[in-house]
């Protein structure tokens, strides 16, 4: 058996006959890397003595880095693969940081369907993770502004009503600053770390529903880009709520499009943990209530 890899993406494991057929039909390229038991490193297929290279290389059927899984990448058509170029954040070197960020917000927030339909399902964790980091920094910035604004209002209110309010106010400001600094320093890496866990939970729920057509990486990428909605937290008062709702909607659409599943299934995957919790608590409460009522009824019958 030969393992085939193209541009860092595993295309699967194939027998020598299959690889030979693939080379002849253009499914595999002589430049694709191969590995089989006993080899120390990966080598181009052209270096395999057991394989005969075609005289003219036909156009490849399987695009490089087309899909997340071996079978899926082979199943994708070249049209699908060439269309996988979004979001703009992945092209920030070419577009520039500011424009790439702005374009990603526009694409993800206002046309999530087409954007996530074309989302690259591979490409590593670095780009979406960096995007999430930028969004978290923006979120913390808005949180600091809001926190200080509220502390200031509270301080002004206390000054107007209490003689010793200055001491309280100063303490509150210093205390708030320390907490904000600490939560900024630790909260951002923690949120980034837990986003991997959250993506794993969503992938798990999608698998339970039989809708995880793509890999964990795809789910992670969707959820990271869905944090674009955090931009709304810059709006005072209602911004947080808008961000939560918008992020949820974008995540649902994104998961549905990226995993090629129905929207309700994507929504269920996101809401499943909460839904099961509610259902179980209701069930247990109902059972407890029924027990208490039957006990009371039995006592009433005895008397």
């Amino acid at each position, binding site marked *: 058996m030969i393992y085939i890899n193209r541009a860092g993406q595993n295309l699967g494991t194939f027998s020598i006959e299959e690889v030979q057929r693939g080379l002849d039909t253009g499914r595999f390229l002589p430049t694709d890397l191969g590995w089989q038991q006993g080899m120390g490193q*990966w080598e181009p297929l052209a270096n395999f003595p057991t394989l005969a290279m075609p005289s003219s290389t036909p156009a490849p059927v399987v695009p490089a880095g087309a899909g997340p899984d071996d079978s899926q990448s082979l199943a994708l058509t070249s049209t699908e693969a060439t269309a996988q170029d979004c979001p703009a954040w992945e092209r920030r070197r070419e577009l520039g940081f500011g424009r790439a960020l702005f374009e990603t917000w526009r694409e993800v927030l206002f046309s999530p369907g087409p954007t996530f339909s074309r989302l690259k399902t591979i490409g590593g964790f670095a780009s979406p993770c960096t995007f999430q980091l930028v969004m978290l920094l923006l979120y913390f910035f808005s949180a600091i502004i809001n926190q200080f604004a509220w502390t200031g209002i509270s301080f002004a209110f206390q000054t107007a009503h209490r003689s010793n309010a200055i001491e309280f106010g100063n303490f509150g400001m210093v205390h708030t600053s320390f907490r904000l600094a600490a939560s900024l320093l630790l909260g951002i890496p923690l949120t980034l770390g837990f986003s991997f866990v959250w993506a794993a939970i969503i992938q798990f729920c999608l698998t339970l529903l039989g809708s995880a057509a793509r890999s964990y990486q795809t789910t992670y990428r969707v959820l990271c880009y869905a944090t674009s909605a955090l931009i709304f937290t810059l709006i005072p008062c209602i911004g947080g709520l808008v961000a939560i709702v918008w992020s949820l909607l974008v995540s649902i659409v994104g998961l549905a499009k990226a995993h090629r599943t129905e929207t309700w299934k994507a929504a269920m995957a996101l809401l499943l943990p909460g839904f099961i919790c509610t259902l179980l608590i209701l069930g247990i409460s109902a059972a407890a209530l029924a027990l208490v009522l039957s006990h009371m009824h039995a006592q009433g019958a005895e008397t």
Partner: protein
Amino acid sequence: MSSKIEITKYVFRPSAHFSGEKIVLRPLAPGELDFEFHFLIITIATALCSLAWLRCGLPWPKCWLRKYVGCPCPACGATRCALALLRGDLQTSFFNNPFFFASYLVTLVIDLYSGSVLALRLPRIRLNKIPAQEFKRALAILVAVAVLANWFYLFFHQ
């Protein structure tokens, strides 16, 4: 039918998969995602930041379910479980939240494996073929049952 046979094979004959048929030891291809490196960095960074968070006296994670409904959530006791595990108190750690105790241990084992293969530049353990969707689903159901069983345990012990 064949998928059912495949699932049964996976679940009931795990030893068959270490024979070289299902699991393979191979080097990473150039440009291939380094799972071990990512896993190690992310878990260690998250664990260190969580520890620093608690050391700084910042608020402990609150359980909204317990606060408003009075019932534990499936993750209740996870922080206490981790802290007891850090102290080496395995018994307390296990009884605080058995599912999270198992999860932490699995994470620790994967970290040890990742650290070893990275430090010694060893070949990586990889699945020979991507498991069938049915197998993944069966595994997910098993995990879901474990989470629910753990939650029932928490209901009666916390």
